[in-house]
């Protein structure tokens, strides 16, 4: 037993000599990402350039936000299939209301809030009515998609001046570009990280995923935490929709079809266990970047067709799931 060595309590600051196995999956993702950059950089000119990296973020800002929300839900052991549809709903709400002449200051909270409300409904269904997360969010997915068509079956272009200026705001420094979307996404990532690691809610999210019964017996607020996790995911989907509306400067009810799969894939590739309790927001961001980079490489390759993206994602998923399975087997 560890107690035999009467050592002093460790000092507050210490350098970990050995890698904690909790970080292994994230390190794995990071290695994959680095390898892709190295391979890409050696094969193609200008691959590892500020422009390419900046674009990687700009094109995937909305997905980063979705993945952050999805991480919360998956950490509690749930899943949210609705994020793609909710994102579409948010773009449609944004575009339709702006077209109707509402000021952005009102439209933006409404669009994001739509996601929050749907997320709340999911949470209530999952926790209080014990509907399986899969089914509850599936209903939400259909609901949001249907609502999109009710609001606007056609694509609506956004030309409201202040919204456009917000959307096209770009900061350039030394070849690097930072759009308002990326800025917002990074703020969300930072907020997600802080909430998960420095609040009781965040730690309870992990606790619920690690064992709901245990969390209950530890006296933690399980009900509130589960519902809130879905609220976070819904809100992130709403915000993701806003970012997508800014990115595409339009609202379209067919946006984001199957985007929930990308978000789930990013989270899994980022090292979060779908069984809950283990994973990091930053891993999910790395996961999004891996997905984005696959696409970039296929574009650079030129001869490779776009469908390889899906196949490669599938293979990556398989590898990560298999490795996680082996790790979890060895643990028990």
């Amino acid at each position: 037993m560890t107690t035999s060595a009467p050592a002093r309590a460790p000092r507050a600051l210490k350098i970990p000599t050995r890698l904690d196995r909790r970080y292994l999956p994230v390190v794995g993702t990071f290695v994959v990402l680095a390898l892709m950059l190295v391979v890409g950089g050696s094969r193609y000119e200008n691959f590892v350039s500020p422009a390419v990296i900046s674009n990687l973020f700009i094109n995937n800002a909305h997905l980063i936000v979705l993945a952050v929300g999805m991480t919360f839900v998956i950490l509690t052991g749930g899943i949210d299939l609705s994020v793609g549809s909710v994102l579409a709903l948010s773009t449609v709400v944004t575009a339709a209301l702006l077209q109707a002449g509402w000021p952005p200051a009102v439209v933006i909270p409404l669009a994001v809030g739509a996601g929050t409300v749907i997320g709340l409904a999911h949470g209530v269904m999952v926790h209080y009515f014990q509907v399986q997360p899969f089914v509850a969010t599936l209903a939400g997915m259909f609901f949001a998609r249907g609502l999109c068509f009710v609001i606007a079956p056609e694509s609506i272009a956004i030309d409201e001046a202040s919204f456009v200026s917000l959307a096209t705001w770009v900061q350039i420094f030394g070849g690097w570009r930072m759009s308002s979307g990326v800025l917002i996404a990074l703020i969300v990532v930072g907020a997600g990280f802080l909430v998960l690691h420095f609040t009781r809610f965040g730690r309870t999210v992990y606790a619920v995923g690690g064992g709901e019964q245990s969390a209950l017996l530890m006296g933690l607020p399980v009900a509130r935490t589960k519902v809130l996790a879905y609220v976070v995911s819904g809100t992130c989907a709403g915000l993701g929709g806003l970012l997508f509306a800014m990115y595409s400067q339009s609202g379209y009810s067919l946006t984001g079809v199957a985007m929930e799969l990308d978000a789930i894939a990013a989270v899994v590739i980022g090292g979060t266990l779908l069984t809950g309790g283990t994973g990091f927001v930053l891993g999910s961001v790395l996961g999004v970047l891996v997905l984005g980079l696959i696409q970039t490489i296929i574009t650079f390759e030129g001869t490779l067709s776009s469908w390889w993206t899906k196949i490669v994602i599938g293979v990556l998923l398989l590898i990560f799931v298999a490795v996680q399975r082996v790790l979890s087997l060895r643990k028990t």
Partner: protein
Amino acid sequence: MTQQTTPPVVEMTGISVEFPPVKALDGVDLHLRPGEIHALMGENGAGKSTLIKALTGIHSPTEGTIRVDGVERRFTGPADARAHGVSTVYQEVNLCGNLTVAENIMLGAEPRRLGGLHWRAMRRQAATHLERMGLSIDPASSLGSHSLAVQQLVAICRATVGDCKVLILDEPTSSLDTDEVAHLFTVMRALRDDGVAILFVSHFLDQVYEVSDRMTVLRNGRLVGEFITADLPTHELVQHMIGRSMDVLEAAEHVVERAGRPAGTTPLLQAVGLGRKGSVQPFDLELYEGEVVGLAGLLGSGRTELARLLTGADRADAGQTRMAGKPARLRTPRAAMDLGIAYTSEDRKGEGVVDGLTVRENIVLGLQARRGWMRPLPRKQVDELVASYIEQLGIRPADPEALLRNLSGGNQQKVLLARWLATAPRLLVLDEPTRGIDVGAKAEIQKLVADLAADGMSVVFISAELEEVLRISHRIAVLRDRRKVAEIDGGGATMDQVVDLIAGGGAA
């Protein structure tokens, strides 16, 4: 050590808990005093856990009063109980292995800074608590990376954060080795000396004698009595737990007829050096046709584990088995089944009945599984088979289409028996077939076992109730500490003899 003068911190009087129609607890008293280690003793189904759950508010008693610090209380749940100083540490560590040690200790009472967690203070405080437990582990490490023993101590650590007046330890030592137990006891004694009342539930008698000051013994949901540990010999304790009163002794006539086994018969099943690490030490056992072999031993003695090795439910990692003289490999339940071995698990709900299926489906499940899905039993044959078992075993309601979850425990057990009898086994291993069922059904099942043996079946019978084992066994194998320690002839055995063997030769 026991301060009789101090008023009890917990006073439970006349507690009854009912799960209609069963009375799980019937007028039980429990008194805990500050600064004592109080053992709660009893066999499976005696009501120990129910009593603990009544105290912590998981079950609400139908009768009786609970006073904590002299104030009458009914807690709404473990969290509420904890807020009033009554903390529980369960057998399975109910903490989150994916969080750090510090979080597991401090969450709920964590130090904060700027509205968020103050990690450094949290780790520091956790380290102080850990130090009190004599644990020098890194509070920032994840709990899951530590041994079960450490996790158990961390759970106790969490329980003692804040104002802890009463600490309930439910089977804390079941997965610890000797050194770890010794460490736990040091911690328990230190807490006791700080004035905490500790309620200690364990099925290891030597541990109870080593650490406890007083004990309360329950049997079948009733209070047997409260004793000073030092004044109660092990032998008497075991008798209290297992139950021996004059009328029981008289009733303990042997149900089975004793027929001498002809010399030189080949055993039906012969196990040589069969064992499994961490489960049961290698043992030898021979089972003969027409014979009931009882397994006696306390909970955790290895009696269930032994049965599981004989039936392929767990895979042995040592030893051989021979069936009717031929080498046999019992690697899966299915393999054992094909050799004519049947096993009803003690965990009727988890591993026995399929509660969403009907009586009919549950009865034919085993037979059908063996035939394979493509060769269904003809419906007429099924109906006859099911009707005959319902009749023969007296299953109530006598409705083949009743859902199993709507049957009482005793009737579910009969359905399970019917499932296995339908496969016409040569060896029937029954693990606690009579637990938690009423007296009438119990007697019926005992009678049935005797009849089956008389018809030539070989039966292994496990029960926590010693008199039952004595009554129906031709031979009795006694287990202690995961080891087969003796094998005696059922005919000549007396209660005293077996109790001595179970208790370890009377040594406390």
